[in-house]
């Protein structure tokens, strides 16, 4: 085995790319859960975003339109879940699981004739001088625009949730929908908006996967990324800043195991592919061991159906 073939700089650069789809989806789900809704359909919305973004980018030749269309389609399928749970009072867990199944099936159907095509390339930015700096240049200034967007989005969501009135209302709805309703806030409308935002973020994450990370369309290509994103929301105790840590930790383990495989580590690759998931489970178990702390951060109305009692 030759560990020296693993370059730390390359590792960090590629872990950021590997983490971005999960980070985007996790940020969207974080906002949804803060409003008191548990949407387990992240995986389904991601793969719809992946296939729709891919089709749009291939058809128009513009990766930007691909991202936009991926986000719109993610938001569109999330509305199925939203109408079911907010207006028809369907169970959120069952509806979310249904959305995942539906999304995987629909994406396979839509993407049938797009397998094996290469999408238009989405290049990394290049700032003269800065991007050419050793080490720092590649880690700080050498990414594609979506990575910077995901970091800006993290900050934006943190600012929205903690510093603005809109964010306060959103948290209030997730904390106690009955009290928010009694004060005259439109619980269902706020939750619909949050779900749509979550869908758009998941769609964007999916589009990043098919347009930049892989970049190809393949059936079932999200491979559980949506579930990891859900786990990261809990791991982050519903705090945007910690979601970055969670996503990068997962991305880091993913990239590292690929590098170790390439370096010829004498362990079956099957075990190595398991490590990101194992690491996630271990971290979640450690987090969950402190119930008291966790339940302080969890939105108190999470997953509960709201019946307006007028």
């Amino acid at each position, binding site marked *: 085995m030759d560990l020296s073939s693993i370059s730390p700089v390359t590792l960090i650069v590629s872990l950021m790319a590997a983490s971005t789809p999960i980070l985007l989806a996790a940020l969207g789900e974080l906002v949804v859960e803060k409003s008191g809704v548990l949407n387990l359909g992240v995986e389904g919305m991601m793969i719809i975003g992946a296939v729709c973004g891919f089709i749009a980018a291939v058809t128009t030749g513009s990766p930007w339109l691909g991202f936009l269309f991926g986000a719109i389609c993610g938001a569109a399928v999330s509305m199925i879940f939203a109408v079911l749970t907010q207006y028809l009072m369907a169970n959120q867990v069952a509806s979310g699981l249904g959305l995942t199944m539906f999304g995987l099936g629909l994406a396979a159907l839509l993407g049938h004739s797009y397998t094996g095509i290469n999408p238009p390339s989405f290049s990394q930015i290049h700032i003269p001088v800065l991007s050419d700096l050793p080490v720092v240049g590649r880690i700080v200034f050498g990414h594609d625009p979506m990575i910077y967007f995901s970091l800006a989005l993290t900050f934006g969501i943190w600012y929205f949730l903690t510093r603005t*009135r809109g964010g*306060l*209302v959103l*948290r*209030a709805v997730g*904390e*106690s929908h*009955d*009290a*928010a309703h*009694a*004060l*005259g*806030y439109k619980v269902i409308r706020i939750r619909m908006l949050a779900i749509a935002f979550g869908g758009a973020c998941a769609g964007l994450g999916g589009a990043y996967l098919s347009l930049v990370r892989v970049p190809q369309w393949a059936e079932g290509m999200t491979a559980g990324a949506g579930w990891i994103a859900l786990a990261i929301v809990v791991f982050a105790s519903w705090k945007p800043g910690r979601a970055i840590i969670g996503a990068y930790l997962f991305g880091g383990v993913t990239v590292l195991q690929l590098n170790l495989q390439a370096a010829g580590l004498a362990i079956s690759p099957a075990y190595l592919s398991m490590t990101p998931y194992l690491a996630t489970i271990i971290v979640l178990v450690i987090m969950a061991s402190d*119930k*008291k*702390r966790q*339940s*302080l*951060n969890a939105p*108190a109305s999470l997953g509960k159906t709201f019946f307006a009692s*007028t």
Partner: protein
Amino acid sequence: MTPLLHLSGLTKAYPGVVANDNVGFEIAPGEVHALLGENGAGKSTLVKMIYGLVRPDSGEMRLHGQPFAPHEPRAARAAGVAMVFQHFSLFEALSVAENIALGMDDAPETDALSDEIRSVSKKYGLTLDPDRMVGDLSAGERQRVEIVRCLLQNPKLLVMDEPTSVLTPQEVDVLFETLRRLRDEGTSILYISHKLEEIRTICDNATILRLGKVVGTCVPSEETPRTMAEMMVGTELKSPTKRPYKPGRVLLEVKNLQLPSKDPFGTSLRDVSFSLHAGEVLGVAGVAGNGQDELLLALSGEELTDTAAITLKGATIGSKGPNHRRLQGLLAAPEERLGHAAAPDMSLTENALLTGHARQRLTNKGFVKWQATQNFARAIIQKFDVRTPGASHAAKSLSGGNLQKFVIGREIMQRPDVLVVNQPTWGVDASAAAFIREALLELAEQGAGVLVISQDLDELMEISDTFAVLAEGRLSRVRSASGVTIEEIGLLMGGTEVDHAAA
């Protein structure tokens, strides 16, 4: 002088029930007006119409002589109507300032708001720290948050729905002081309560509702609580007669019971010790959130403790679960009817089975004996006058009072040696409450020990033989209930230990 608020002909019907039927009355500026009535009399619906949460089917409201028809709470607030809710509309995980900002339509910046909160709370003697988390506040402090939130909007009419149900007597005094000051400044107050003594103290006029209709008006200071209660209920009331108390043998002994609370906003039990005798009704007073829920959980067996901490008829049972304790004769009825004492979506028969199976032998080798279970449920319904079409109806379809009669009846029918109840008459109307108290006294008379945890001091004074106060997870010394004054209890509830002086 034009009345501040004039209501006439207000009617609101829901499927199957007319909540308000042609209701009308007036409130003058600077008047404290009481709205009296049992649960289900239509008080809440009326208030929701005034606050814009519900729209009347017909009828008219006038504010300052102008037509007033708020279509949402925001419109009502803009017109000068503010409301303090019965079940606090607060968010536990948010700070005081955030909670107040949520209730205002044009909330200033956080810092400016915090300053405003401090100045208003100072002016009205309502101490409040804007940065604290609401989940850490006592019930009295939470209510202050609601009141300050209302006051920051300079209301003309302040609506208060059951404001004192969770307060200590001292906190009630502070509240009344604030209300008087507001009244003197010209604010009108619509005061909803079924605590008649309070209404006599604070209210200028009263309107009495029964089954959605106005059945009378009165000047509370010229009435007695009894005459007002009878107007509310429509019949004469009988109060339970206390029998002389002779302590029997010790049935339940609790020694240095410790229980860390699992709820982040709960209170841990610290060194709780007492003994309960045959024939004794022990009343445990205290403001909500001082360890009442934890005490019930520890006694019922839902939370296990050190095995020696709890002794039932000579056997240590601290580490034994609920079914073991039930078989040994210790039964419990928790405070929360729906979701804790009863499973809301299950039928009364199924609910009867849930706590009754062990002691009533309703199962045979793991199979349910449905016929016997149904008979058990029917017997409870009959004996405890539970108004329901039948035992196959879901628990949640019953009104609060009827479900409470069922829940308490289910335990009493199993002939316990020791019965522990938490808030047995919370949110229950006067006639059902009297029935439940009578049943508890009868059980004690037959030689059982009864532990009643309650925040309703009048209730405890009425039925307990002995008395203790739970404050911040500690239980005061148990003393005889005769000769204890409300003031003394109030001090204990606030956490002041006056045991030595009184003993």
